[in-house]
């Protein structure tokens, strides 16, 4: 039993008055999280990110609905706003019908807030049962106990959604508020879509915790593009728990810029042969920001491929973390898994921790991982300088190229340009600061 967890749950957990199937799960999750508590550094999977310490302040309370106009600070707006999309907007964790665009959904497509889906009697038993691996289970439990809303996206068999779906979260209010949301995304066999997700906040000290349950049917395909740009006083947790069936494909590319401390974690589990999953993350941190990118890929069946790439740029006293784990189950032959973490330390006080793990129980596999940590290549910098490029620009060019490995892989062209632009802005703030 953890007092910290109990206090937190008392203030923030959802009353169990929903449908019976959900109440059972919420109660179990409540008990499980009360028992486990916030993970701390003595929990192996959290050794570099002490959530218990980050959450040590005790007055955490639920955020209030925000009904007025959302005034996004300059330069922080939704990068995907120019893209024609179906759109779900949440403010402080509450769905905002007026800001969303859900008209004209094609046949066989369901996009709606979780609360509405629950009111209609839809059951999400398997999604709420999926707690992911040990590393993520406490957060899944916390979310199940505390989340009241979120997004539901369901595509029937064979549907190809032409327009992307945008999932936009704004957090304008802080002051030790918390917002837990739960997304459920289910793609039937052969369905495909692009999900553009942005989490943008400026409210000061708050916690956002988002768990996304993915279920991709056979041959389904999901392209997931994410921007994480929370307030630099905020703590954010983003968890993706995905089941990927045979010949299905999940591709995630994330740009992370914000937060005092954040953990982006994904657990991808193959349920059928020939599936593919990859999760690539670029992050740019400064001051005392802390970002933890954790991915567990479970090759439970033969013949699947996976990739994970993390590219970090760390300035000032920022701390980066990469934890990768590839599990290849017995008999999961012909598995192919790659993991790479590269980090650039731009300042004397920045630090990077990497832990790329392999856990392999089958012999006919190709698994490789790599990790590099270092500063900008002096020779490359010198070369650019010798061509008459000033130092700041040269550094920026090299860093952009470094991040390119993640950002250029984004298949949606407008989204790619938008995130590249955001990364470029990051340097400009630095430049102004220096002048």
């Amino acid at each position, binding site marked *: 039993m953890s007092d910290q967890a109990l206090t937190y749950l008392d203030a923030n957990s959802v009353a169990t008055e929903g449908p019976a199937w959900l109440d059972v799960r919420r109660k179990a999750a409540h008990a499980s999280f009360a028992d486990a508590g916030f993970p701390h550094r003595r929990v*192996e999977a959290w050794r570099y990110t002490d959530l218990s310490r980050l959450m040590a302040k005790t007055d955490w309370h639920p955020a209030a609905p925000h009904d007025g106009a959302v005034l996004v600070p300059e330069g922080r707006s939704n990068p995907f706003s120019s893209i024609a999309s179906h759109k779900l907007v949440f403010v402080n964790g509450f769905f905002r019908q007026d800001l969303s665009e859900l008209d004209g959904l094609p046949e066989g497509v369901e996009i709606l807030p979780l609360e509405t889906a629950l009111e209609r009697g839809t059951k999400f038993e398997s999604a709420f049962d999926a707690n992911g691996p040990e590393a993520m289970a406490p957060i899944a439990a916390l979310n199940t106990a505390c989340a009241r809303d979120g997004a539901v996206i369901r595509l029937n068999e064979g549907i190809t959604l032409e327009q992307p779906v945008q999932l936009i979260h704004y957090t304008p209010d802080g002051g030790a508020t918390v917002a837990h949301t739960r997304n459920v995304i289910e793609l039937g066999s052969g369905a495909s879509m692009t999900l553009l997700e942005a989490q943008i906040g400026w409210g000061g000290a708050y916690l956002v915790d988002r768990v996304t349950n993915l279920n991709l049917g056979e041959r389904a395909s999901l392209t997931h593009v994410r921007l994480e740009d929370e307030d630099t006083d905020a703590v954010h947790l983003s968890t993706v728990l995905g089941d990927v069936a045979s010949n299905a494909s999940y591709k995630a590319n994330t740009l992370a810029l914000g937060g005092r401390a954040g953990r982006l974690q994904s657990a991808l589990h193959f349920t059928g042969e020939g599936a593919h999953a990859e999760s690539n993350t670029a992050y740019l941190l400064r001051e005392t920001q802390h970002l933890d990118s954790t991915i567990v890929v479970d090759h439970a069946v033969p013949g699947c491929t996976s990739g994970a790439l993390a590219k970090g740029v760390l300035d000032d006293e920022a701390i980066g973390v990469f934890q990768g784990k590839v599990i290849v189950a*017995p*008999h999961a*032959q012909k598995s192919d898994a790659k993991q790479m973490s590269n*980090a650039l*330390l*731009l*300042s*004397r*006080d*920045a*630090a*990077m*921790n*990497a*832990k*790329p*793990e*392999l*856990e*392999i*129980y*089958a*012999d*006919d*596999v*190709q*698994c*490789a*991982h*790599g*990790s*590099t*940590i*270092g*500063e900008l290549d002096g020779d490359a910098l010198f070369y650019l300088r010798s061509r008459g490029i000033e130092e700041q620009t040269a550094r920026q060019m090299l860093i952009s190229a470094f991040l390119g490995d993640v950002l250029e892989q984004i298949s949606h062209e407008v989204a790619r340009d938008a995130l590249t632009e955001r990364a470029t802005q990051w340097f400009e703030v630095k430049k102004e600061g220096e002048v």
Partner: protein
Amino acid sequence: MVATRETVEAVDEAVGKYKYGFSTDIESEKAPKGLSEDTVRFISAKKNEPEWLLEWRLDAFRRWLNMEEPDWAKVNYPKIDYQDAYYYSAPKSDDDRPKSLDEIDPKILETYDKLGIPLVEQMALAGIAVDAVFDSVSVATTFKERLAEAGVIFCSFSEAVQDHPELVRQYLGTVVPVTDNYFATLNSAVFSDGSFVYVPKGVRCPMELSTYFRINEADTGQFERTLIIVEDGAYVSYLEGCTAPMRDEHQLHAAVVELVCLEDAEIKYSTVQNWYPGDEDGNGGIYNFVTKRGDCRGDNSKISWTQVETGSAVTWKYPSCVLRGDNSVGEFYSIAISNNLQQVDSGTKMIHLGKNTSSRIISKGISAGRSSSTYRGLVSVHKKAEDARNFTQCDSLLIGDRCSAHTVPYIESKNPSAILEHEATTSKLSEDQLFYCRQRGLDEEEAVALLVNGFCRDVLQQLPMEFAVEAQKLVGISLEGSVG
């Protein structure tokens, strides 16, 4: 001594029970079974140790009582009953130590022969001074005079305590502190014997120093303690080879090795470990929980660990380097072969504290049968370690579809000028290469041995010549029965 009668009975009981292997039935003197302050006092008294060392042991023992056995390693073994083991045994002729080989119990020599370690031949052939640890007490130390001429002290730990207490007291526990970990603390309380090496300033040790460890007495936990001190500008190469006769009882082994490397000094520490791994069903075999650490205390110092691990049922071993001095270098070359139901959790720690420190890790894991092999390593660069450099390569080779290979590296950098690179691969033995070898007339086992030796080449090359030959053979022998 109260324990004497009990001891004699215990020995009588143990002798005659041997069913397996070729344990030598020479009389031993044992401490009573179990672990208590009395056991610690018994061991210390047996060795005629000074008061400060007894206090040191007792302090360790008291701390150990409050510690918990670590469970983070990826190994499974039945809970060890620390009260159901003997913590001290020595050949009976302790008081009357042999002065030369002729005086050594022929049965001991015979055992070495069976193990393929012809002591006499080796001395003549390679000019190696052998400090053979038979059970816990050294019974033969050779070439002492030649080493003494150079000023090198190479003796058993017990002798060092008697003859050079000031050196032992100055350095003991300074690299691996008493409370370092559960097994190291246990060792500190009950260590039996081991080797002591001291190389004075500017001396290049004229020969490679070699120790053969043997575990011979059933139910005897072995707790070697090795301390190597190399002063400014000196050099030593130390070989440690281990074999054990077959037996059916699990045996605990918790050694501590401390290396102190001062300015411009270099230590090369090579190990071939071939203890009894248990039978094909995982019965028997040795539990090997070892704490090995080197401290590059002086500038420009260098410590190189090379290990070939083929034995033991459970291996828990992380030879480490603390790179304290500026420009110091740490190296770790490892081959870990596991077959049948063996479990290996091994790796290294490279702690970069000084400027321009560099480290290199080459780890080759080979799993066959139903075994499990884990590389677990830490590379840590502290804030002041300007221009630190690390390169790590961990390759795993899987033979058969029921074994497993894991890699758990921790990479931590707090200095931007540091460059750290890590790469790891896991793959199986190439069918094409096997086929090629087969069609050139090699049988399957020979082909596997050849290919695995090729896979391990980077590490085998680091071994001193005498060891390299033995190790190559060992690679083949360890994988017998893993294919086909």
